[in-house]
């Protein structure tokens, strides 16, 4: 029994380490009715204008068309947001282009994506180390 617990703890630890080591500059917190994934058009995040491609799926994995997305970049540890407003346009079913995602200074930025369609809402927060 205790062996199984140690094995689970070890696997959890490996999974946690693997996730930190995978080199992504994103850390994600997901909540709500949608599965929100996002990737920068060119990675890693750089100071200046970036473009974020967001994919929205429902709980069954089907693309969500015609949703309203609000994208809010914040440099929380400095107490300010971005100098430019992110404009969202749907490129294909469930695929949204968010630009300009402007990081006007280097450092840690949090990008909150709020998605809404009808009564359904979802939120996901991505973190980017901007260099």
């Amino acid at each position, binding site marked *: 029994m205790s062996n199984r617990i140690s094995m689970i703890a070890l696997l959890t630890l490996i999974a946690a380490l693997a996730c930190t080591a995978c080199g992504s500059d994103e850390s994600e917190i997901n909540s709500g009715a949608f599965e929100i994934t996002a990737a920068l058009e060119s990675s890693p995040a750089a100071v*200046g204008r970036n473009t974020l491609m967001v994919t929205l799926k429902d709980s069954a994995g089907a693309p969500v068309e015609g949703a309203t997305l609000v994208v809010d970049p914040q440099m929380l540890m400095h107490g300010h*947001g971005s100098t430019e407003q992110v404009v969202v346009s749907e490129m294909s079913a469930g695929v949204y282009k968010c630009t300009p995602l*402007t990081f006007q200074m280097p450092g840690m930025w949090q990008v909150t994506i709020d998605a809404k369609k009808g009564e359904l809402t979802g939120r996901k927060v991505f973190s980017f180390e901007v260099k």
Partner: protein
Amino acid sequence: MSASAVGVGRLLSWERFAVGFRTAFAAGIGRWDSSAHFARYGDNYAEHAWRSEFWSMVAISERASAYLRLPWALNYKQVGNLGDGAGGGLGDIQAGLRYEAVEIGEFQWFPAIALTLGVSFPSGRATDQAQAHADALGTSVTGRGAWAINAGVSLEKTKIPWFVRVDLGIGVPLPRDTVSGQTLRFGPQLQTALTVGREVLPRVVVSVYGRLQWESAILVAGVAIDNSSRADSGVGAACSWRFDSHWTAQLAIDSSLAFDGLGDNQPAQLTSTIGLRYGYF
């Protein structure tokens, strides 16, 4: 003796008022991240500021004086694919009172003690207001958008031709609403500086100082933001030359101690200042 090249300083005992102009070039050299690791800016980023200030100080009693500082900044930034540009405007205006609780030489063994109480007005433009002005680089940002109350105590011991001064200050920013409607409160600040100076020639005073500053975490809707506390340290030197009984020229240089662990979540700068002061009596 120690008419300061940093801050407004004080009136000489025979002066009724003083006015001054100061202009400084602050070259951004890099930044400390929230783990206190220092990194120089890369080729894709630069920020420099040309900051100027008109100030005045007027005696309101034998021991008390009032001051006003009108800062102005011109910022230059280069931000990756946004290119570069300059902009600026009025900064956060400050006004306050200074009280000489113990004047220099009043007691032989006791240091002079001055107390200050001031307020900083959010007259500068905060970052979240830059968006409405189509300022993607953020060069028009000249303030933090919050009122702040500042209090300080300055202890100075003189033994001609030397002086030593310890300055301690606290700043308490008041809560403000962001453009997105949340209540944001910058953390209280604690500043301290130790200055040692000497009159090296008649009417020429040279001083060196070290300074430290801490700022506690930002609160958004009452919740502290992780890693948002700040720290900063620097050293500087100043020289003032009273070349006329009314006029003093001031020169100062200040550098952040741009090394790992000596700052936190803060930009580092190298600042050169020149100033001119007129005292009326």
